[in-house]
């Protein structure tokens, strides 16, 4: 399974969640397959999905899922100590680890070589770290959401991309409908 198949498998679990999605193909795939107002698509700024997700989770009570990639976590590796030391039990960081920079043409990342992001997260102090295969992605995410504990999921999958259109929604449109979804989620 590649990233797009993993994201496809997550859609039923993501339906009622606030989702912050990584730049590039992950956001484009999520937008194409399962657009909803509670999805915040990153149109730029590689690496900050986990930071946006944590900031959001810390200031309100609804659950937040950040969908990130191995390359983006590597580019903002400082995010893992910040997450570990500012526990938000309504936060799940789901890292799609395909061992490659998918959006730029599947150049290999160090996460696909010697570096284990799960072990990095543990070493940073993250207390609930789950590594899973692509076929277990939805189950692992469901478990994390039901655990009511902050969880880092590292989902190993194959590289490879599908043709997918760019997101043409205006950033302020994405922002405004997401803020409304956050308000609804907090009743």
């Amino acid at each position, binding site marked *: 399974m590649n990233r797009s198949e993993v994201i496809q498998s997550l859609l039923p679990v993501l339906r009622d969640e606030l989702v*912050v999605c990584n730049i590039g193909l992950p956001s484009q795939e999520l937008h194409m397959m399962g657009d909803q107002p509670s999805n*915040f698509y*990153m*149109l*730029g*700024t590689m*690496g*900050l*999905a*986990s*930071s*946006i*997700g*944590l*900031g*959001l*989770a*810390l*200031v*309100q009570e609804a659950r937040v899922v950040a969908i990130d990639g191995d390359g983006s976590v590597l580019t*903002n590796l*400082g*995010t893992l*100590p*910040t997450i570990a030391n*500012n526990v938000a039990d309504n936060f799940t960081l789901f890292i799609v680890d395909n061992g490659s920079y998918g959006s730029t043409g599947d150049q290999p990342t160090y996460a696909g070589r010697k570096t284990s992001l799960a072990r990095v997260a543990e070493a940073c102090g993250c207390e609930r770290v789950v590594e899973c295969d692509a076929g277990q992605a939805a189950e692992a995410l469901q478990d994390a959401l039901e655990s009511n504990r902050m969880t880092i999921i590292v989902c190993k999958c194959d590289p490879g991309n599908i043709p997918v259109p760019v997101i043409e929604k205006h*950033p*302020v449109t*994405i*922002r405004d409908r*997401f*803020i409304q979804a*956050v*308000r609804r989620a*907090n009743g």
Partner: protein
Amino acid sequence: MSGSRKLVQDMVDAGIGFVTSVPCKQLKGVLEEIDASDRIRHVPANKEDEGMGLCAGAFLGGTRPCIIMQNTALGVTVNALATLIQYYHMPLPMLISYRGEVGEPVACQVEMAVHTKAILAQLNIQTYHFHRAQDAREFPGILRHTFMSSKPTAILTDATFWGEAQ
């Protein structure tokens, strides 16, 4: 009231509930006041662009954010400012220690000081320079302006200001 305490009181009065920071010794007093405040959640960041991501998330969650950082960090935040904070029209007051100005003991700090206002001007970020202690009287208005306009603003605080404001 110390200059640091007044700035933090102004943040609370402006409704700021979330602060991220990467420290500078000029901002030590402000950071201590923030940690002493039970009205502000302080989440230290490891890098300033990471901090801007945290602030964006807090804003999306309905909490007014602020970032505290050194001017040298502008070099690593240009992309986050342009493609996240500005592109999505988010408010972000940036309380910045303006290192490398008169009174600076470390020569290398001057190397980014000479670019500081040029980078901010290139990004069309409204910039306020606190040089004298009384300049801080503008802070409440600057914060109101930041959230009214939903844009980032830069508040540069130099060594002369901190010399007078302690």
